[in-house]
């Protein structure tokens, strides 16, 4: 129990330190906007039924649980299955807390309780899954071209989850909410895809290097989202403008993450292109018009990136 509290305290401190490095002004603007506008906007726009939050929260937690890199570490520090599950449950309830509060505020107490049960379910299943990278058996995903190696290697690393993720896209037939979550997850995953810089030898510089890379990724991702997007637009024609906005958000994310990666690129040492500012700007994008703010930032990063690459290679 003491360990669970110590870990939860650490996780909260992590959040605090991370936000501290971003700047509290940006965080507060973001929080006010998302609480004031975001939730209401989503509720009204997609007319999300309360029970759907159970399904979507389950999918969200399963995705997070599958991708978390600390599983072996957690198994090594917790003495029993029960203590490990208790910790994971507490952590997942904390993640779902805003949705639980929101549902209770709306008077959907059973859904709120159901969300707590969803957290228990995912936490109990968690120790059964081990990360596939330890198996040394890699499934090649050849339909993603090798020049899009960041996305290809990431998808290969996640293995089965990639197939599940693609299938979820087609489940948009059920409800547009699935499409919303799908695109949001896709956007939030992209900074992780482009997190690490390749070695300097892997870059074959040509003029407009960054733009060509962005174009190539837009084409690959475009092919991937084409069918689910068409399904949504045909089945939910009254939401066509919303679907287009989401796709615009996805392409903006590609533009932003690639531009940011190469704006930070250095040949001196291997560094990470992860940034909390990027993550917050991505979240901001899902508020009405937020994508345009993100796009402006992306354009600035793009100009920096082209300059940076020209300076290093041309």
């Amino acid at each position: 129990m003491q360990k669970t509290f110590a870990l939860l305290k650490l996780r909260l401190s992590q959040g605090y330190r991370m936000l501290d490095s971003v700047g509290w002004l940006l965080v507060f603007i973001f929080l006010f906007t998302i609480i004031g506008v975001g939730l209401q906007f989503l509720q009204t726009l997609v007319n999300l039924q309360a029970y759907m939050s159970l399904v979507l929260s389950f999918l969200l937690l399963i995705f997070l649980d599958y991708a978390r890199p600390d599983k072996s570490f957690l198994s090594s520090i917790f003495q029993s299955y029960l203590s490990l599950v208790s910790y994971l449950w507490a952590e997942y309830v904390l993640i779902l807390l805003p949705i639980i509060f929101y549902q209770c505020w709306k008077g959907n107490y059973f859904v709120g309780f159901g969300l707590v049960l969803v957290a228990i379910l995912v936490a109990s299943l968690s120790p059964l899954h081990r990360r596939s990278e330890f198996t040394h058996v890699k499934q090649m995903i050849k339909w993603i071209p090798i020049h899009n190696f960041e996305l290809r290697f990431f998808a290969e690393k996640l293995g089965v989850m990639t197939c599940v993720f693609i299938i979820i896209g087609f489940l948009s037939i059920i409800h547009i909410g699935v499409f919303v979550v799908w695109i949001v997850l896709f956007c939030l995953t992209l900074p992780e895809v482009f997190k690490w810089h390749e070695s300097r030898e892997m870059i074959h510089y040509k003029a407009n290097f960054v733009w060509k890379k962005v174009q190539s990724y837009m084409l690959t991702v475009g092919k991937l989202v084409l069918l689910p997007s068409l399904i949504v637009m045909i089945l939910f024609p009254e939401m066509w403008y919303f679907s287009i906005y989401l796709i615009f958000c996805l392409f903006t994310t590609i533009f932003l993450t690639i531009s940011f990666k190469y704006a930070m690129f250095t040949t001196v040492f291997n560094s990470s292109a992860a940034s909390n500012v990027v993550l917050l700007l991505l979240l901001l994008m899902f508020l009405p018009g937020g994508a345009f703010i993100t796009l402006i930032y992306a354009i600035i990063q793009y100009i920096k990136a082209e300059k940076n690459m020209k300076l290093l290679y041309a």
Partner: protein
Amino acid sequence: MLEIKNLSFSFGQKVIYDQLNMTFPISSITGLIGKNGVGKTTLFRVLAKIYRNQGVEVTFNGQPVTPNMISFLPTDPYFYPYMKGSEYLDIVAKDPSELIQSRVFASQLDLPLDDLIDNYSTGMRKKIAFAAIFAQSRPIVILDEPYNGVDLESNEAIKYIIQQYGKDRVVILSSHILSTITDISDRIYHLQDAKTVSSHPKEGFEAFAKAMKTQLMDKFSDSE
């Protein structure tokens, strides 16, 4: 005694081990050496139950080994981002006595515990993980390349800690620098391939090192 019987393990079609047997007495330090890719880390992961069991029988004093009995220092330990050294020791320790012990090790290894681990060097990361894991009061300790990236002074400190606090436990460690193993080990297991492992007692270390060197020199001169 830690006993591994019929160790067979494969990644799909690739056989890593085929019916190997090994024993590790209590109060002994055993060094594990072998070429890159021969399966040292795989063996450790099998023991630490990171890999699914493929039929290997691992017992400690006749009882099946559970993950709670093993402290495992991986080659590349995991750390949460934005975590301080002191917080890492807090969460790895089971109780206050383990925590105090890990802090003693950390001070012997000159670690700045109030700094974020993100700002640590490779060697410092290895040292903090070593301090936390070696302080766990579990009977089996597995150290996968504990000297990687560690400075000379800390190298000696780690050797000292292993010798002093490894008593009454089974300690298994791997390294690619033979002297770091021969200095403190009571026995060496040399993994050669999926079916062959040779055991060398302390008194045979010198002869073993010489034989290894001659074998390598012959190999190089043949290729020339």
